[in-house]
């Protein structure tokens, strides 16, 4: 069977949901819906008590979702195998965006990281979010190239793919945004493992990552605030006003939810805004307090469903490129979800990583929904 069959008409008008994986779609829709409620619950009373529009965040969140869905839909329009041809362009755009934020006066700093480009109208864009996609598609392209009869990538391919990842990662390191670096690194290792490359690569990369983290802390490349975050992870009571405070408050907030929670819109910890960044990075604390163990479990189960479906799409992909893209996206979602909820629950150190599909914030929403679009794109093409 040839890779391109005549049955695919790239420019044919398709209905919105045609070829979508229904379960994956339902899980993402449920997460988007719950996320919207939580963003509203996290901000309504706070804004209302300050005499501001209580629906401010809700409206913007819904707009973000709408744009994100449009982007996702757009991603599915063109067969991914055709998109593959444009991969270098995406990659270069991603790297340019990352370079752009580092130029003084153009990028803006939030929470110690120079990670944002301010847009007119109060919008900001975070190129690192979109760079995740650039790296995934870029690596997948190189690792799926088959210049010979073997089914596994050559060492040269692997090295090339690592360079493709290393350039944007080093730019993100300069911001610095350790959370994103961590998630991308995990995804890179996963893609390499899934590519069929030698297991030695995987082991070597993990070793390099460990030595790299150790060396960075020792040499002082990592900012003081990041070391503090790590320290407060190890001993949350050490820094009671800084990041230790946030982690402790987050845990107390989640823990105080108990089995059934305090009810949506009803959490005194949330409404008292004891946890900072509640609508973005710490959105899961709102779920923990207001929806309790039962509600929070549903969210984790939705993520599990999403990831398993996404993984299924990767396995059933008809070509290595599709498989690697889907594996990369799945790993990205998985590690970002784990890092975010893990941080909220005190399992992981504090990094500024949003929760996929739920946190307030345009860039992350757009990027994750584009990732979702890529999954659907591959799904749509796997059966004729």
């Amino acid at each position: 069977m040839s890779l391109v069959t005549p049955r695919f008409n790239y420019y044919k008008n398709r209905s919105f949901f045609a070829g979508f994986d229904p379960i994956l779609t339902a899980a993402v829709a449920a997460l988007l819906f719950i996320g919207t409620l939580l963003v509203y619950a996290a901000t309504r009373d706070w804004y209302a008590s300050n005499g501001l529009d209580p629906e401010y965040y809700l409206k913007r969140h819904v707009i973000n979702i709408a744009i994100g869905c449009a982007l996702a839909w757009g991603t599915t329009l063109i067969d991914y195998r055709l998109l593959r041809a444009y991969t270098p362009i995406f990659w270069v755009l991603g790297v340019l965006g990352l370079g752009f934020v580092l130029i003084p006066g153009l990028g803006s700093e939030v929470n110690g990281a120079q990670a944002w480009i301010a847009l007119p109208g109060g919008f900001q864009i975070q190129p690192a979010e979109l760079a995740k996609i650039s790296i995934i598609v870029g690596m997948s392209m190189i690792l799926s190239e088959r210049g010979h009869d073997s089914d596994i990538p050559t060492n040269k391919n692997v090295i090339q793919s690592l360079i493709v990842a290393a350039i944007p990662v080093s730019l993100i390191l300069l911001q610095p945004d350790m959370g994103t670096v961590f998630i991308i690194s995990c995804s890179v290792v996963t893609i390499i493992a899934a590519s069929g490359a030698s297991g030695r690569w995987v082991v070597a990369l993990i070793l390099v990552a460990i030595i790299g983290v150790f060396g960075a802390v020792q040499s002082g490349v990592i900012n003081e605030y990041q070391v503090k975050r790590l320290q407060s992870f190890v001993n949350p009571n050490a820094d009671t006003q800084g990041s230790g405070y946030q982690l402790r408050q987050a845990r107390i907030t989640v823990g105080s939810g108990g089995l059934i929670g305090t009810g949506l819109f009803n959490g005194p910890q949330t409404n008292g805004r004891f946890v900072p960044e509640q609508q973005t990075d710490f959105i899961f604390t709102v779920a923990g307090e207001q929806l309790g163990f039962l509600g929070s479990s549903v969210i984790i189960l939705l993520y599990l469903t999403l990831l398993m479906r996404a993984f299924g799409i990767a396995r059933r992909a008809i070509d290595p490129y599709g498989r690697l893209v889907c594996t990369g996206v799945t790993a990205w979602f998985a590690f970002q979800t784990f890092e975010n909820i893990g941080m909220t629950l005190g399992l992981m150190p504090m990094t500024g990583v949003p929760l996929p599909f739920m946190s307030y914030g345009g860039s992350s929403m757009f990027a994750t929904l584009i990732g979702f679009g890529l999954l659907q794109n591959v799904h749509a093409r796997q059966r004729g």
Partner: protein
Amino acid sequence: MNQRTRLSMLVIQILIVSLLMALFGRLFYLQVAAGPKYRDAALSIQSRDTVYPATRGLIVDSSGVPLALNRTGLAVTIDRLALDKQPDKGQAVLKKLAKLLKLQYEDVYRKTRLCGELEVGSRSGCWTGTRYQPIPITKEASTNVALQVVERPDEFPGVGATPIAIRNYPGTVGVNAAHILGYLGPLTDADLAGVNGKTYYRSESIGKSGLEIQYDSYLRGIPGIRTVIVDRKEAITSEGQNTNSIPGDHLVTSLDVRVQAAAESALADAVARSRASGYRADSGAAVVMDVKTGRVIAMASYPTYNPNMWEKGLTVKQAEALFSEENGVPALSRPTQGRFAPASTFKVVSIIAAANAGYDLKKSYACPANVKVGTRTFNNFESKAQGTASIKQLMAVSCDTVWYQISFDEWLRDGGLSPIKNPKDYFFKAAAGFQINTKTGIDLPSEAAGRLPDREWKKNWHEANKDFYCNYREKAAKSQQTQFLLLLAKENCLDGDKVRAGDAVNFSIGQGDTLVTPLKLTQMYAAIANGGTLWKPTVGRAIVKTDGTVIKTIDPVKTGTIAADRKTIKFLKESLREVILTGTGARTFAGFPVPVSGKTGTGEVFGRNPDGSLKDNTSWFASYAPSNNPQYAVVMMLSQGGFGSPNSGVGVRKIYETIFGVVNNKIVPENVLFPDGLPTTLPKISPATKVKTNGGK
């Protein structure tokens, strides 16, 4: 897909599932397993309690005259939250306020800081409450100052003026009673930690001494608490519980302000008289007790202090003065905490001992100028021989030598320095019958017990001190190494564990190691007066609710019976009456229309004053009246006050004059304080109750 890829994909999938399972497990731990712990933590983060102290119960005398009240003061307060919002954290405001109140800025600043905000060592005056409640800078602002603050909120942001309850000891008819009443103070960390098993709120004041601490749990009431839920910026988001305060219960005492005032002024006069005769008279005590119940009617201690000074804010200088030796340590309550040798007032014990030992009290005994006890000669008071006389007469003239002889003879009979098995110890046992080595159990804190230097005490004392006395030359200061002291040390080293002849002789006249508190001696004389019953002294009479319901009555408690039979007590009473009729008390009470019985005492004190001078004698006068139907026991003691009769005796007489309404040796009926006897019913309680001026008629 090749085999290796398949395997990799499987591993990745397992990894991802296990990551999510880890989240799931952690979530279960936080929310279900440790959920209650975190719920409590969240609650303590969000809720703020504001404590509204309850109105404290009054303390009144037996006819309802208030001894402790709550006065309304005008407090100028600081709102820390508003102050901290100022660009300079309120510095300018505090400076301006200090100037307006004529206070030092540093003091005002300190008063507005939580104790934890200040360096250790410079915390005195810090605010022990929370920052969410108004912090009082002064409780006694003038209306004028308060108005200035309230009317110019732009100049004094965060400063308010509000009426506040102040504990006030009104000092009706000049009563001080500082040592009985006590005072209020802020909570200590120990109080807050619940050391005494009670829950307090940080901003409350509690009783620190006297009746205020003794009956604190009744007087304080239950504070009202308003709980609010706040957000991270301390803005109130919702109201929690809101309980009203329950006012404290009133304490009715057995004190009488008129007698108390009389006792205080008689004591102060006695001190002045004694000083005028050249004695040091550093301190003193006077106690008036109902002999039939042990209830304390008055109790004065000299020197004293103003009980209101705590609420005004005690300065460091005032606090130091309270404990300064030069000022006579005004903080010490002499009647309950001062221990002195009872001297001749203790001869009532010796009479009982002699009677129990089989001596015929009606017979005549010799009172020589001195008695030889072994190698030492013990002189009669002023070495005067009184010839041979009955015990009653010898008591009246306060003969010592007769007791030396009897005590020495009894000591010999008990085996002397090698005591027989089960010695009779008539003297020690007679004293033990008065329970002189235990506390009386009065309802006041920190009472001291007397000391009975019996055989057991001697043994313990020797055990504790033999090292010092056996190595006296090395251990004692050079100035303490006189010939006499060296000899004494040698004796103490050798047989300090035994009751020696000298100890026995000294004990018989209330000297040596014997110590009692003035309250104890009053209880002893009350027991003789009432026929032998030791009543536990009490100041509190009843606890009464604000609506008048009696919650608790404090009834007399019998703690024992003295070791004397009816006949001996009758003889004792006759002897004590003889003292006033013909003996050492005769001149003092000449012409007094109410029959009084009593005994003088002049106690020798071993030791020196801080300035190096030898200590003067302790002046005692212990008594009860009326002799035929005793009602009151009155004791006065002057430390370093000289002779018993002229100084303490006159003081006691003055107290009786007030009680019985005696003017110029005549009873003036409208001046009699208790014409119908001591009050038996509880008074109605009102802060406005006035003193009865004509005996209630």
